[in-house]
């Protein structure tokens, strides 16, 4: 089982011939992911590490049965790449590219949903189901197989927490990076719902940060809908208001979007929140030991 990516995943890499795509596509393949195709317009017929390259996604799907896409193209071509993937019938899209204009993402967001596809990102590290498939840039060696679902707005912070869990003997069902942009394809709530339904996932760690109100929405969802224990970590307690902290979406606007408000909302809904990556890992370990 796991969520989003697994042994059924047949991956097409949009932008496979670029510098990032040609590094991470083969890495995903080496991990055991079925990387069946690459797409770069004008480079059809080439190969990257034995992966055939096509001119378009529709052609790649027809030839290889790809069902999942990973997007690595430069920001200004990424919106087109998302629409092309949906058009070709891809059901799961991981958009690693960052710097996509927010207004254009609004259009893509509604289109992807309307067509019944699922997208994580943009500006995300992808998804990894340890032992099954790795789609994206997550360093798989950090994570172990297990039953803790991990969902995060940040890449490297997720690696940090996965690493802390692994050092304490806990592994993950799936690690999902939803991305650091103001508009992303899947919210915390979307991914929490998948974890709740996944028999391999026994608990979930949610890694949020300043900006927006998705953590607050997740808190209400967890209280209402989830039977599995959820633990959380929020980054950005020391962030000043009005400054974008790296991620386009990580900004405290006026008095809204603060780390404290998110922590309070989560705790009010029964979610235990760790103050450091180490502490949240310890909370999960303690709960696993007592449960």
């Amino acid at each position, binding site marked *: 089982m796991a969520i989003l990516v697994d042994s059924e995943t047949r991956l097409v890499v949009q932008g496979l011939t670029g510098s990032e795509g040609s590094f991470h596509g083969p890495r995903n393949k080496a991990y055991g992911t079925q990387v069946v195709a690459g797409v770069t317009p004008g480079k059809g017929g080439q190969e990257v590490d034995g992966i055939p390259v096509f001119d378009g996604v529709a052609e790649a799907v027809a030839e290889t049965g790809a069902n999942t896409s990973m997007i690595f193209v430069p920001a200004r071509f990424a919106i087109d790449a998302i629409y092309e993937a949906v058009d070709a019938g891809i059901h799961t899209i991981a958009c690693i590219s960052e710097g996509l204009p927010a207004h254009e993402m609004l259009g893509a967001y*509604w289109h992807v949903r309307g067509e019944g596809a699922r997208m994580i990102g943009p500006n995300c590290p992808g998804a990894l189901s340890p032992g099954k498939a790795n789609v994206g840039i997550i360093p798989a060696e950090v994570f172990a197989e297990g039953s803790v679902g991990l969902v995060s707005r940040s890449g490297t912070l997720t690696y*940090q927490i996965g690493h802390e869990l692994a050092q304490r003997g806990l592994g993950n069902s799936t690690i999902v990076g939803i991305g650091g942009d103001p508009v992303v394809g899947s919210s915390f709530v979307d991914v929490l719902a998948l974890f709740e339904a996944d028999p391999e996932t026994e608990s979930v760690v949610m890694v949020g940060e300043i900006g927006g109100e998705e953590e607050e929405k997740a808190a209400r969802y967890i209280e209402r809908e989830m039977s599995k224990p959820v633990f959380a970590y929020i980054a950005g307690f020391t962030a000043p208001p009005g400054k974008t902290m790296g991620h386009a979406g990580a900004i405290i606007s006026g008095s809204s979007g603060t780390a404290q408000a998110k922590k309070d909302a989560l705790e009010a809904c029964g979610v235990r929140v760790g103050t450091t990556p180490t502490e949240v890992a310890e909370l999960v370990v303690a709960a696993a030991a007592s449960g």
Partner: protein
Amino acid sequence: MDLYEYQGKELFAHYGIPVSDGGLAATPEEARVAAEELGGQVVVKAQVLTGGRGKAGGIKLAEDASEAEARARDILGMDIRGHVVRKVWIEKASEIAKEYYLSLTFDRGEKKPLFMFTTQGGVDIEEVAAEHPEALVRLHVDPRVGFQPFHGRRLTQEGGVADAGEAKQIQALAGKLYGCFVGSDALLCEMNPLIVTPAGEVRALDSKFTVDDNALYKHPHIAEMRDLEAYPPEERAAREKGVTYVKLDGEVGILGNGAGLVMSTLDVIAIVGGRPANFCDLGGGGSAEGVVDALEVITADPQVQSIFFNIFGGITRCDEVARGILQALEQIDIAQSIVVRLDGTNAEEGRRMLQEAAPPNLHTEPTMLDAARRAVELAGETVEVA
């Protein structure tokens, strides 16, 4: 990117939204010339990228050109919430019968643009929202549908605009505002106040305007509006080098990869009793040159007493970062102690490189918490020595 009032109004005017005539001045003399050209009563308005100008004395009425010059002399150089006034906008004074409020924002949660309108304008809108929520009309526009005339009608009907002529103008203006918002890839367009003159004309008297940085490549004329001098010198240098950097007030310089991990690093520094000096994200990739550039920016801040390098490699390869650190130590004179923590992609190779080179002021720590404690400790020691 935030725009000045006059820049926002320039964009409003471009999209057909009525604004008052005015001129920009960087000196009192220029203010006089601008006021002469406009004729009659003018308003001298400080141009700063922060709110609360009126309360701070940054907006003054002047009867004629010589008074405009005097008021500009008072206002130029004024410090408003840490922003020094370097330009004033001289605008034809408006007769005001009513003050309304109209804005269009990017609602991240709903994934739709959001209009907000109230006839109780001219005051802090968060106050209106808190005290008279019923007076504030909130109306989402589905981006797949775009602005339709009914949106305009709902705004004025639900906002309680009684006058038919006024309502018509506001409806048209809302449509133009939507065009402006989408056309310029804005994240916020606000008019507070939106005024009605005694003659019944509706006009934007102020503008607050934020444009999506990621879309600036499509709008070179807006990109050129960026006023580099409005940012702290460290942030300016960082921008030139393409380093993501935010200046903070503490002593421990922070460098990491990935926004979330860097934010978490700042928090951990605070938890172990230190104060972060900055936010600095190497981003994905993390080439050796990128590390050198970032270290140059961080060490340019005289408050920095120690540096905490926190790297968890994904796209970033730790050996590349280690190479960058060693290269930086050769190229620039770094007096502060550097505490390095490497994990993830090629971490072993990176650690080995640092251990072999073993520069005297470089310390490696196995975990993020240990490294944070060490960096705070070293920042304290440096302070005592100094």
